[in-house]
């Protein structure tokens, strides 16, 4: 990783729109990250844990029957095979180690699908840190197994009852907790969102996905993929896999958002796809869902991890610059892909990931696709079986 300063802005997006109380902590975090990422001891501890505890590098799998059906090679970057079942642990572990370096004994996190909460609870168990996870009460219902996992791991799960009781409110509650307890607490944000330095910090920690995948596909195919496809909630698995390909101009980058009940309805989670005026949510300026007066609109998605009215500022920048393209997939299409991929490949994907797979399945053109299989879908079984 480079030692250049951490980006506060991506074009006009990003920034630090937070209460003054947090400004000193953000500066402290930025300094700590600049020091840690250049520190051999930190790197080797993290790399060692990624290898032995998380199970990296994750495999790149040439999806057999999917490729046959689509008449083109489709590769899956198997982040579902990480310990805890998603890409989220890459970030949670890196930040938990950082918290330890900063002398913070208490960690808080927000979670939607519960995957980031489980990853954070896991890292905190490993590193003996106190852990509190905020989760919307609608999500504690629909992602029940993950609540139980977090509690077994020793974390305190605080259900949040406000607004739509989903990820937006969980994030707001976590930020308020941080404002109260900023001296003792590190906030492990779960995606490439939030005030600087978080979007860059989380991207740095997730970029291992793309670094591995790029090398693996070159080894396997002797060429780069035509497209790299990932689902986008806040956008961390997408930034993680995109980052290594940003300089490869012939590689298309496709971010798949939650189309919910359709982007022609208000019930979706696709601010990048729909466009419109940028706005501030959870500390940064980015693509968000808002009304004319600037009130945030509740998102909707069948997938708790994509059920969020904001998105990472670097994605808004990549969209505007034309480097990446953002599309949306509906609840129904995602559910169909969830079932199809499970049957075809023997891999049960997370509902979030099913959005990226649904878009890929729907393309009749193309030559070589690389899809980020961000997580496994065990957590979603009850929800999916009830709906189909």
């Amino acid at each position, binding site marked *: 990783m480079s030692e250049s300063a951490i980006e506060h802005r991506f074009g006009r997006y990003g*920034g*630090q*729109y*937070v*209460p*003054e*109380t*947090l*400004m*000193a*902590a953000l500066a402290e975090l930025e300094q700590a990250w600049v020091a840690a990422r250049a520190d051999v001891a930190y790197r080797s501890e993290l790399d060692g844990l990624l290898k032995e505890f998380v199970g990296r590098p994750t495999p790149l799998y040439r999806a057999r029957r999917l490729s046959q059906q689509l008449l083109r090679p489709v590769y899956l970057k198997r982040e579902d095979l990480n310990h805890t079942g998603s890409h989220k642990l890459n970030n949670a572990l890196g930040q938990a180690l950082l918290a330890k370096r900063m002398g913070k004994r208490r960690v808080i996190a927000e979670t939607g699908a519960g995957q980031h909460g489980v990853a954070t609870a896991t890292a905190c168990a490993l590193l003996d840190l106190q852990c509190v996870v905020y989760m919307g009460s609608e999500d504690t219902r629909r992602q029940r197994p993950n609540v139980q996992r977090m509690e077994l791991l020793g974390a305190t799960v605080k259900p949040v009852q*406000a*607004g739509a009781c989903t990820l*937006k409110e969980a994030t*707001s509650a976590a*930020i*308020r907790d941080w*404002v*109260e*307890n*900023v*001296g003792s607490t590190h906030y492990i944000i779960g995606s490439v969102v939030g005030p600087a330095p978080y979007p860059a910090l989380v991207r740095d920690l997730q970029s291992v996905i793309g670094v591995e995948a790029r090398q693996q596909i070159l080894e396997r195919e002797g060429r780069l993929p035509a497209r790299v496809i990932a689902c986008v909630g806040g956008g961390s698995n997408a930034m993680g896999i995109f980052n290594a390909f940003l300089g490869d101009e012939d590689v298309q980058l496709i971010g798949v958002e939650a189309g919910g009940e359709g982007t022609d309805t208000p019930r979706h989670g696709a601010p990048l796809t729909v466009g419109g*005026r940028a*706005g*501030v*949510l*959870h*500390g940064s*300026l980015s693509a*968000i869902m*808002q009304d*004319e*007066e*600037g*009130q*945030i609109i509740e998102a909707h998605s069948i997938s708790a991890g994509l059920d969020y009215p904001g998105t990472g500022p670097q994605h808004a920048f990549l969209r505007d610059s034309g480097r990446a393209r953002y599309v949306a997939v509906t609840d129904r299409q995602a559910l169909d892909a969830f079932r199809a991929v499970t049957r075809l490949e023997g891999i049960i994907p997370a509902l979030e990931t099913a959005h990226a797979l649904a878009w890929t399945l729907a393309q009749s053109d193309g030559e070589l696709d690389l899809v980020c299989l961000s997580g496994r879908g065990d957590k979603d079984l009850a929800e999916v079986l009830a709906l189909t």
Partner: protein
Amino acid sequence: MSDTVTSASPRIATAFERAHSESRGALMPYLMGGYPTLERSLEIGRAYAQVGADIIELGVPYSDPLADGAVIHEAATEALAAGASVSGVLELARALSPSVPVVLMCYANVVFAPGVEAFVERLAHTGAAGLIVPDLPLEEATQTLAACDAHGIALVPLIAPTTPPERLAAIGARARGFLYTVSVVGTTGERSALPERFTELVAKAKAATDVPVAIGFGISTPEDVRAAVRAGADGVIVGTRLVRAAGDSADSAAAVAEVLSELKSGLGTDR
């Protein structure tokens, strides 16, 4: 006081000067616009003025108020559900401004939505005196400050107990109207036993700026008010305690008037 500071906010400066000449701190109650309803919040604002508020801090209810604790967050949610809008709250500002200087408290995205310039111009047309944006720290405030200065609106910055000395100086130098000193590490809300730190906080704030220093967050009893004034604060902001009173009673205006009168007794002349 420098020229910019006074010219940006003559009414705010006058309000503090009057309180000062009466040897007391300025009384600065917070009003959640549109809570419980728009009409009743206007009655509450009038009650504030009658009890002797020197400045009213008028809150725009917001969907995602990160600097606020549960009471104000819930009041905002209720206000929005009752149909509160930015235009409605700006009408409150217009109605109250003739009797008392109004400082609007509003989250950044609401300011950005119509465009900073357009928002500040609209605000200025209501006769409001100032603007507080709790999620717009110094680094992000350049454009908003320029627009406010151009329209005679005081952009009031906040400092917190966690603000390091160099930042404090930079914020104090750009303060207009007054310097909003957050008394606690935390969100808005009532809490017990916090006045011990007031003296140190106010002294640091005063050393960093030429404008008056007001202290707020967590102040809920006459004793808190007294401690703030004794610590040297030029003004005392009370929020959650009053919002709670407004919500607890069917006659919100009478309820807040009673609480505010009590709090006023702490402003004292014994500084």
